[in-house]
């Protein structure tokens, strides 16, 4: 899986994040000491012994999966009533994997918060916490393009001459974000051409009466050469292995595979044109593999 942001960004940020760092208000004092290395072990041992006394006898994960909406359900057995549902705010989940997910059982837990914790009056509500859905506005910022990317394409066999390739994603309706007629869109969530998996490069056959870059993709010869130029100045040649038409609803998901042998999936439209829908019934797909 290719991250959509540079790995360095990911690495840098993960550690910073969410340390759910918690509030300044005091928490209970039974915590393990992590202060000085030598003292820590002894202190921790003492604290851990205390913890053991409060430990419960049975931890049954399957009980959690039954229904986190009802903490008494399933076979979870605790000495303290602290089965906390881990609500899933995302409304898009299937019913079968929504609240069944993240069933959470604490062992030897004490839900009581420190009396001095003014900002957190969990009390009896502790086990009934339901997290709200993520609100509007909780959306990702535009990702920064990074790394080696395909930038140009030549397919002499069908008169594609130095076409510009741009990175694209999906439209709001989750369809492929096809670029203007004179450009080729590289599906940036999938592999980079030449890397493991199936790199998708799509272009119009025709848009608003203007021929697209892949106007003649259906006619490309098996064995024809596809040359892809990259942002680092390198290039890679590929050989057309097959050209296939699929009804759009039957476009094989494997064409978007994130792993497997490197290949290009060049996609445009084909088949009958529906004037009412202003759309073609099929996709024409040419698959190419790297030439050594």
């Amino acid at each position, binding site marked *: 899986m290719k991250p959509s*942001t540079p790995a360095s960004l990911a690495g840098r940020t993960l550690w910073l994040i969410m340390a759910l760092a918690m509030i300044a208000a005091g928490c209970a004092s039974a915590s393990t000491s992590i202060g000085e290395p030598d003292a820590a072990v002894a202190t921790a041992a003492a604290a*851990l012994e*205390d913890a053991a006394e409060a430990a419960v006898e049975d931890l049954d994960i399957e009980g*959690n999966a039954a229904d986190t909406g009802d903490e008494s359900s399933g076979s979870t057995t605790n000495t303290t009533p602290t089965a906390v549902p881990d609500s899933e705010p995302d409304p898009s989940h299937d019913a079968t994997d929504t609240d069944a997910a993240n069933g959470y059982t604490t062992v030897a837990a004490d839900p009581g918060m420190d009396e001095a914790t003014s900002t957190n009056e969990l009390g009896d509500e502790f086990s009934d916490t339901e997290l709200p859905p993520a609100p509007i506005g909780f959306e990702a910022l535009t990702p920064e393009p990074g790394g080696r990317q395909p930038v140009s394409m030549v397919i002499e066999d069908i008169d594609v001459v130095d076409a510009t390739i741009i990175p694209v994603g999906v439209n709001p309706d989750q369809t492929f974000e*096809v670029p203007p007629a004179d450009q080729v869109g590289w599906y940036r969530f999938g592999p980079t051409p030449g890397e493991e998996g199936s790199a998708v490069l799509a272009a119009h056959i025709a848009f608003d009466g203007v021929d697209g870059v892949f106007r003649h993709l259906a006619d490309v010869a098996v064995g024809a050469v596809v040359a892809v130029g990259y942002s680092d100045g390198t290039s890679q040649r590929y050989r057309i292995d097959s050209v296939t038409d699929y009804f759009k609803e039957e476009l094989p998901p494997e064409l978007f595979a994130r792993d497997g042998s490197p290949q290009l999936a060049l996609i445009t439209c084909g088949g009958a044109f529906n004037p009412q829908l202003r759309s073609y019934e099929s996709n024409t797909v040419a698959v190419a593999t790297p030439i050594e």
Partner: protein
Amino acid sequence: MRRLIAALAALAISAVMFAAPAQADGHIRIHLIHGIPGVDVDVEANGANVFEGFSFGDTQDLSAFAGATLEGVKVKVAGTDTVAIDAGDVALPADGNFTLIAHLDADGTPTIGVFENNESSTAAGEGRITVRHTAAAPAVDILANGAVAFENVPNGAGGDADLPAGTISAEVVPTGATEPVVIGPADLPITEGANLIVYAVGSLEEGSLTVLTESIEGLATPPAAVNTGNSPVDAAQGVSVAAIAGIVGIAIAAAVAVPAVTRARG
């Protein structure tokens, strides 16, 4: 070491016994994370240590034990018989995707949390962020891009959200407050087709708060459709051919008609 081998052998046998039917369902992933800073531990099951010197931040894959019941599970301070967590018998699920994490509860008491991970596919162009409060600290609000995304999250709870791939800016504040910002703002990568799971661990009071992360990949969905044309190529050609034919026809007609008219006048 002999004890360890014996225990592993025993576990392997029981795992085989219990795992066989489980594998009929195909998918299993059970990971165990050590989420208590500063304490190396040994994990005992079925009367012997199965993991020794298990350190903070380490992960063990328990998938081989899917469907098995581990008897007398104890988490002990490494190299000692000091029991930190006595989890009793632990019945591992037969299939599914789970993370077990040894962590501190809100009061700082060691405990084991069990989360079932959300393996549902993410929509094309989206990734999933999951946050889990497993630190010895009170409840918090988690802000994303300035808005409260997860509200009043207590120890032991969490949540997730599917977002367009990209980066969000995250902050953590006390529940119901806007400050102090105890963490962040920090950028979080949302990777398409992947689930980034962030655990807050450690202790506020001890100053050991930090985060651990794990990632689940392979959740991507292809685009709903590839619509690469909104005008007909054949019709476009037809129009132009007709136009050309029309022009040629008019020209021919004119060429024929004009002399005729001229002649008639003459």
